[in-house]
């Protein structure tokens, strides 16, 4: 029988995000059970529209990227590029009729940057307002075998 489809969020985060070790990542996975999927990336700016789109297509109700404060990016402007890409992705999904706010970026504030756990809490809170994505309902089940 069809189970309650849990709404999953895809969260990409720059590896430089404070308190974002593997340990902390698993704690968050435990806390939120299967409703979040966390992906550390080498730089926030590595996020591409493709990552967001495939996530939304396969399993995610919404997808976000967490980047470093302005001026703190190790690659200088990864966070700025991420901003532009998020904007671009919004335009793409809006053009196919999906709500633009399913994609988002969280720029860690420069003064008192937040830990991964806090940022995730914020995102989960905001995303809970979203309706289940119509894209996911088109598939039979989110757990297709991958080979």
């Amino acid at each position, binding site marked *: 029988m069809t189970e309650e489809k849990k709404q999953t969020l895809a969260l*990409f985060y720059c*590896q430089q995000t404070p308190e974002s*070790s*593997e340990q902390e*990542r*698993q704690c968050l*996975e*435990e806390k939120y059970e*299967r409703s979040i999927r966390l*992906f*550390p*990336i*080498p*730089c926030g*700016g*590595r996020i591409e529209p*493709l*990552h967001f789109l*495939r*996530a939304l*297509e*396969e*399993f995610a109700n919404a997808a976000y990227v967490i980047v470093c404060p302005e001026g703190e990016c190790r*690659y200088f402007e*990864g966070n700025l*590029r991420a901003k*532009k890409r998020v904007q671009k992705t919004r335009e793409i999904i809006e053009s196919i009729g999906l709500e633009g706010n399913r994609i988002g970026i969280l720029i860690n504030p420069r003064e008192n940057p937040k830990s991964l756990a806090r940022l995730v809490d914020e995102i989960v809170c905001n995303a809970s307002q979203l309706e289940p994505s119509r894209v996911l309902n088109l598939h039979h089940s989110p757990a297709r075998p*991958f*080979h």
Partner: protein
Amino acid sequence: MIKTERVFMPAKYMIHTQIVPNRFRPLTKSGIIAWWEGCLGCRVCVKRQCVYGVYRNRDLDVRQMIDSMDNQCMNCLRCVQGCPRELIHKSINPEYEALGDSHWTPDIIAQLWNQAETGKIPVSGAGYSGPFSGPGFDSMWTDMSEIVRPTRDGIHGREYISTGIDLGGTPKHLAFTDSGDLESEPPSLVDMPLPIILRVPPFGSLSDNTIKGWAMGARELGTFLALPNEIIKGELLAFKKNLIPIISPCHPLLHDALEGVRLVEVPWGEKWKEITQKIKEAHPSVLISYRTPLVRGVEEKVLSIVNSGVSIIYLEGTSSGRVTDDNSIFIKDGIRQTHLALVDNGMRDEITILAGGGLAMAEHAAKSIICGADGVFIDFPILIALECRMCRRCTKGLPCPVEIDRAEASWVASRVTNLIGAWHNQLLEVMSAMGIRDVRRLRGETGRAMFYEDLDRSTFGSLGTLREGYELE
């Protein structure tokens, strides 16, 4: 007329390996950062010039969000150094860095994955890239011989380098009757073609298929799989000849549970004599290995039981290769001390020493034997062979990222065969470099090994000192 008989050489022990593809994309070290904003669209783009074709046919594995270019990148940095707008940079993949822990390092895990996939020994270009020395086995070097009695054909040629061992003690002497018949009991031995025994690890997202796959691998290799007695049922019963049931005092031992089994393991604790008796009554020919934690001073304990009919002991260290009651002492020292204590008392051959705990590389098996073990147990490597990342999510109730429980038994078996095949070849490399052609001769050969602490002190301990008015550079 001379009668000649056609004699066939006994078949050489060979482990047949083949490529066994991963079920999931592996995590690799590279993280490419390639901006496209500002790209000039050069006619001859550095990406197209990539010798490894990394940017061609890129795709994204959605499950783990792994970009194929990171799996294929070989870190030559030509694209980084060639792009006119400097749009390409490198990073180390944070998921790779997060693998394992300080003992099961990302490089060790990746190397195990590779061996399980290809069955090949890790080979690479350029010289050694690691630290000068390190804790535990990393502080030992093995010897080579400039001029040896070699195998003329190389290690894979027609001559034998034997890696076979016997489990079970050998008596000090044999007694014969006047007519030449053996008077004393013949030694009770179990022989194996290689000195490595598989063991079910303490955690893992395991299913019946996983265990069955390991048992199949053990049978294919001619070794054993040690596993809790309680789980031996159903399809596993067919593999009894290659299983070592681990008896637990709290689980009752059924009467015919050990039918067809050659070797069992009993914890050397309170009830060991009781359990031994029970087993011997029902199955007199079964050999028993007694497991004891490797602690400081364990050699005293071992000496005390040699004379009570114990012929096999298993010294178990922690999963990070240390002695259980002192994190600063490594299993190599515990093994060495036990071996030497038995040698000093003239009892070494009466007992077989098996060792285990945190063995992660083929060299650990070779070095354990050099330190004095007869054979070794490996547990986590056979799990890592199944793409395990040592993330320990299974211990927290989180789903396994590589769904080990859903793997087919035949896939498990061939991955393990590959891994052990690669380890076996590496053991041959080490032995042949030393000019040793029988692993039994390798046992205890510490005279041919080089130890960092000793060499370092004897070489550098008496160098100059920093005197008044001098400075270092």
